[in-house]
């Protein structure tokens, strides 16, 4: 059995008191009332953002609201990542030598892979295309914004110009997709001979009236007998010979010119988008001359490979 004997060792530990500290101070954010306001929209203050800029970003929620749809997601992501939408492009109509419109029913569509300019769009089956400009592939003629503007300016009926603050060599795929037409189904016809519709630039042949007695036949000039009516498609005026009894409805399609397009550094592509899918697959032409997607190309393979890595995908029913 070991025998232990205690040995005392005497020593002292001297801890010197700090005489002074010299250091650079560190910035520390403090929550204030603006953070509480932003919390309503699940927004957070960006690093070193001032109250004024933060307030503008919060109030931007009403101007560019978020949502589970294409523009909504772009708005929310752009706001959170501090990459706000910027005004990029304006597309307007060319005027004839006497100031008249050159095309009856113009329309512009910005799709995933191209910009389509319609000189005469009546409905989804009847249209005449003025020009189509590809923007997706790097070799496309409209890949860069300034090239896209040049291409649009060479069309028959359309003119385009860049916003002075946007970078001219921005990729055109940054443009927020959409089109410049919409349908209104519930404009009111009251008991007046002249009805001023809510919108201008009405698409020809798209006007529908619920009062079939007052609005029976469309005429080119001034109506002269009951049932006749004249539509001024540019100004959005409807002149009828007789007057509707009570309040009725009308519906129409309208376009907006000049069409202002924003650019966003956030890109969102839907795999169900027909135009985007075309870029991911080789195209096979059938006997009926219809084009369908065949095997995925290099880019398509990369996209799907990435997708399979991130989530589980099931085949079959």
């Amino acid at each position, binding site marked *: 059995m070991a025998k232990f004997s205690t040995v005392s060792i005497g020593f002292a530990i001297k*801890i010197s*008191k*700090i*005489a*002074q*500290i*010299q*250091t*650079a*101070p*560190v*910035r*520390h*954010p*403090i929550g*204030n*009332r*603006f953070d509480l*306001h932003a919390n309503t929209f699940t927004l957070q*203050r960006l690093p*070193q953002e*001032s*109250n*004024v800029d*933060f*307030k*503008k970003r*919060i*109030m*931007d929620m009403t*101007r560019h609201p978020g949502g589970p749809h294409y523009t909504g997601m772009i708005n929310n992501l752009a706001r959170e990542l501090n990459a706000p939408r910027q005004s990029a492009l304006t597309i307007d109509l060319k005027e004839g030598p006497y100031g008249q419109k050159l095309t009856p029913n113009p329309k512009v569509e910005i799709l995933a892979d191209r910009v389509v300019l319609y000189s005469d769009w009546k409905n989804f089956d009847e249209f005449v295309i003025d020009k189509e400009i590809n923007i997706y592939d790097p070799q496309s003629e409209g890949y860069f914004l300034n090239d896209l503007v040049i291409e649009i300016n060479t069309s028959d009926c359309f003119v385009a110009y860049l916003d002075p603050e946007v970078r001219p060599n921005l990729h055109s795929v940054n443009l927020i997709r959409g089109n410049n037409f919409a349908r209104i189904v519930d404009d009111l016809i009251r008991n007046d001979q002249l009805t001023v519709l809510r919108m201008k630039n009405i698409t020809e042949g798209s006007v529908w009236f619920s009062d079939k007695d007052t609005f029976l036949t469309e005429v080119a000039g001034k109506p002269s007998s009951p049932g006749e009516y004249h539509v001024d498609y540019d100004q959005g005026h409807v002149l009828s010979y007789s007057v509707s009894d009570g309040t009725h409805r009308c519906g129409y399609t309208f376009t907006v010119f000049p069409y202002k397009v924003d650019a966003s550094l956030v890109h969102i592509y839907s795999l169900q988008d027909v135009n985007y899918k075309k870029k991911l697959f080789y195209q096979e032409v059938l006997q009926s001359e219809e084009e369908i997607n065949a095997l995925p190309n290099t880019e398509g393979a990369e996209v799907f490979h990435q997708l399979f890595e991130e989530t589980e995908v099931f085949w079959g029913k």
Partner: protein
Amino acid sequence: MTHGTLPSRRYNRAWLTQRLLNRAPEWTRARRSPVSIAQQLVNPLALEVQETMQALAHERNNAHLATCDLTLPDHAWKVELPGRFEFRKEDDPSSYPYIYPPKVIVEINGENTEITLAEKNNVQTLFYEALPTRIEYANQQLLWDEVIPPTLISDLHSVSPIDLSFEGPIYITVQNNTVWEKQFRAVLYRSKIYLKGKDLFDNPITEVIPIRLNGTYKTRQNWTVLDEIFVAHMDENATITVECLPFTEEEVLDSRTIAIDNDGTEQYQYYQLKNRSWGSTLVGTRFIVGDLDQVRMGLSDKATNLELELLNNDEENIEARAFVLLPWTNYAYVVDNNYFYVYDYSVPFPNIEGLRNDTGDNRISVLFPDNPWMCTRGDEFVIQTKILDLSTIPTHNRWTITFPDGEKYRLDTDGNLWPLSVDGWIYNESFGDGEWKEQRIAFNQVTQTGAYVVEFEGKYLQEDQTFLYRTTKELFFVPAITPETQIPLPAQLWGAKKIGFDMSGQLWFYNGTSLLKTKVFHDYFMADFQDKTIWLREQYRLVKVIP
């Protein structure tokens, strides 16, 4: 030498005191005299309630994003002390354990300066109640011009607005207007000003301001571009001025007017600078009616209720050139040629020592009918009697006035001063008829600042033919305020004509041609002894902390 000034925490008279005591009957001393016992008692309570009202109004504004205060602090600078840092503690074991705040030395403009601890070492006194310590030119200037210079309404169509100097609200000053409404058939059209332009988010907006009186209006919305301005139903000879900062307005509305009643009990309070022969004063005016329709019909206008003499740290008068009220506080920033002053523009509570030995003759009231109880040097002050009990009238009376420096004089009914050796008793000529003729003295020798005490001594003949002496004392006040802090201005900011805050709380100086951007610093620190952190309000390159 430490750098930083603590607030003086001067004892002020609350504006709320009079409002509370207005519930007392009209004839009581509690309501009439600002230095009666009741008002002395209520004053500290009213100060507390005032602060609470102001905080509630501030919080109510902050509840809505559109009016949320953009000057709220959003960041601080911290120095985290190492764990083995020990603060200096009280050595004497028999005394209360006390931790001494450390010494904090920072580099300001290349010099090592020691900065002061925040007054109560808390967030309130570091961020909200700290006084400025220095003011510097921030190396940015804008060419300043009115968006629309003073223009007659008849010429307004030929003038177009220039670009706004910065985004924010627009101030419109209307002068000499006499037309307020027009009637056409059964409809009454009010005079209005229409503005069209773009807001902070490039939305096209229109704002309409119905005008009720000649003055300065601030738009509700914030503007980046003003395209067009036009008016409806106004006098062709009225003048309109549009600008980004309220430099044309002569009076500034204070920031504590919370509730505006329609029955005249709550009044608007406006401030302006006035230059007297001996120096500058800060004048407060208010509407004495609550119904602005009476004002615009010319039946009633503003009345001056307050004139504060502005002194510097050496108690000399200053020649103030410009001022601006700091929102949500009782502070005013005033500049003269070379200095920047921060004043607490509340009315100070007067020195009431002279009211001692008042035997409280409640049969007599000494009133100051023309000016409630305050006066300015050089003005005439009227003293009047109002005998309440005509069954007991004095045979003689005499007046004594005590100046703020303590000198006493006898006063006669013509307002002349006599030494105390003079008897001063005035015989009541109508005593035989059992009547009293009220006395009115126009006092023209207001030469000092401070509290004047006026004594009315009454000599009453009693039944046993002896005399009874009773004294009533009243105080009138010539207020003068010294600054909370006085900072020398850098040379670039000398000679300012106007100063003003923009939307984000940035202070601008106007020297006649351009707007100069300034930065106001608050060099204070807060020590967290438990977490061993030093909190600072400003950014410094290096901070030295010595226990």
